[in-house]
């Protein structure tokens, strides 16, 4: 005879608890942290490097790079003078809270103000795995097309900041900004949005000023 046992527990609740531990560690050390998610090629590494440049020393950055394989991104960050840790997920399509926990232990946390975590390039899986950062940031880029909010609603729903990168390409590719933003507004009403070009630097000033403000608010 079978009996039904009610459970009602969120799948990935263990990961959520681990994410809370990461958050506690970050808060204890007075650090601010963001989880940068996007499809491959949207400009995650470019955003990190351009953010470093635009900050011009106002914040001390550390970087965690997540990739299936290789240390290309961490090498780029290290070449730019950033303390960087590479996580190779070995086939997993997202970072999870346990992976970030290991990586944080390898960074000089007490010497930093802000940790930028570059998630694996993917618009599906990272959305479901909280890692414990203060902000989830999504980079959409113009050449990807204006229909992405409609195709990947989960990702657009779970972020607090949307960066629209490669706006310098708007004259050259079909991209209906109104259609794109209508979809975003339904999924994530009022999400903080920064249109930028990591190539030309357009819009980067607004983004880093906002970031500096968030880090300072956190400390107060």
């Amino acid at each position, binding site marked *: *005879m*079978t*009996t*039904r*046992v*009610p*459970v*009602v*527990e*969120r*799948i*990935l*609740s*263990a*990961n959520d608890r681990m994410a809370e531990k990461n958050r506690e560690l970050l808060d204890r050390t007075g650090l601010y942290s963001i989880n940068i998610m996007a499809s491959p090629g949207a400009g995650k590494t470019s955003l990190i490097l351009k953010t470093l440049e635009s900050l011009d020393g106002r914040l001390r950055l550390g970087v965690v790079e997540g990739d299936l394989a290789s240390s290309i991104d961490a090498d780029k960050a290290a070449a730019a003078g950033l303390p960087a840790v590479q996580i190779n997920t070995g*086939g*997993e*399509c*997202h970072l*999870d809270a346990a992976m970030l926990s290991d990586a944080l232990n390898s960074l000089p946390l007490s010497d930093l103000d802000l940790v930028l975590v570059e998630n694996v390039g993917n618009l*599906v*899986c990272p*959305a*479901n*795995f909280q890692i414990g950062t203060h902000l989830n940031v999504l980079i959409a880029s113009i050449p990807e097309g204006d*229909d992405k909010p*409609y*195709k990947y*609603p*989960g990702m657009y*729903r779970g972020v607090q900041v949307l960066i629209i990168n490669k706006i310098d390409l708007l004259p050259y590719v079909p991209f209906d900004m109104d259609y794109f933003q*209508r*979809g975003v*507004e*339904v*999924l994530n*009403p009022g999400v903080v949005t920064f249109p930028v070009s990591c190539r030309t630097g357009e819009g980067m000033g607004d983004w880093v000023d906002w970031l500096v403000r968030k880090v300072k608010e956190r400390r107060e």
Partner: protein
Amino acid sequence: MHELAVAQSILDISLRHAEQAEAKRITDINLVIGQFSSIVDDSIQFYWDVIANGTLAEGAVLHFERIPGEMTCGNCGHTFQPSDETFACPSCDSGFVRITRGDEFRVDSIDVE
């Protein structure tokens, strides 16, 4: 590859509840998955047969209750399921629309012996 992490999490949650209930075997696991959180597809059952081997959940069948996305128009109050290409209200064409269902992502219950 996220299916493996998801399957492992479902297994951990199910085993914990089965042990609390002092069950001998888990026969069925009932999942509720909303359209907007849907990273789970039926291929999880293939992983399941490997990772649940030798546990109380060996041979358990996974059931997916899929909750379609539901939106409500803030202008006219109409409730609808969005199409693939637009979220605008099919009744009044307003874009002032909010999601009212579809974020579910949970183990709802297990059936045990």
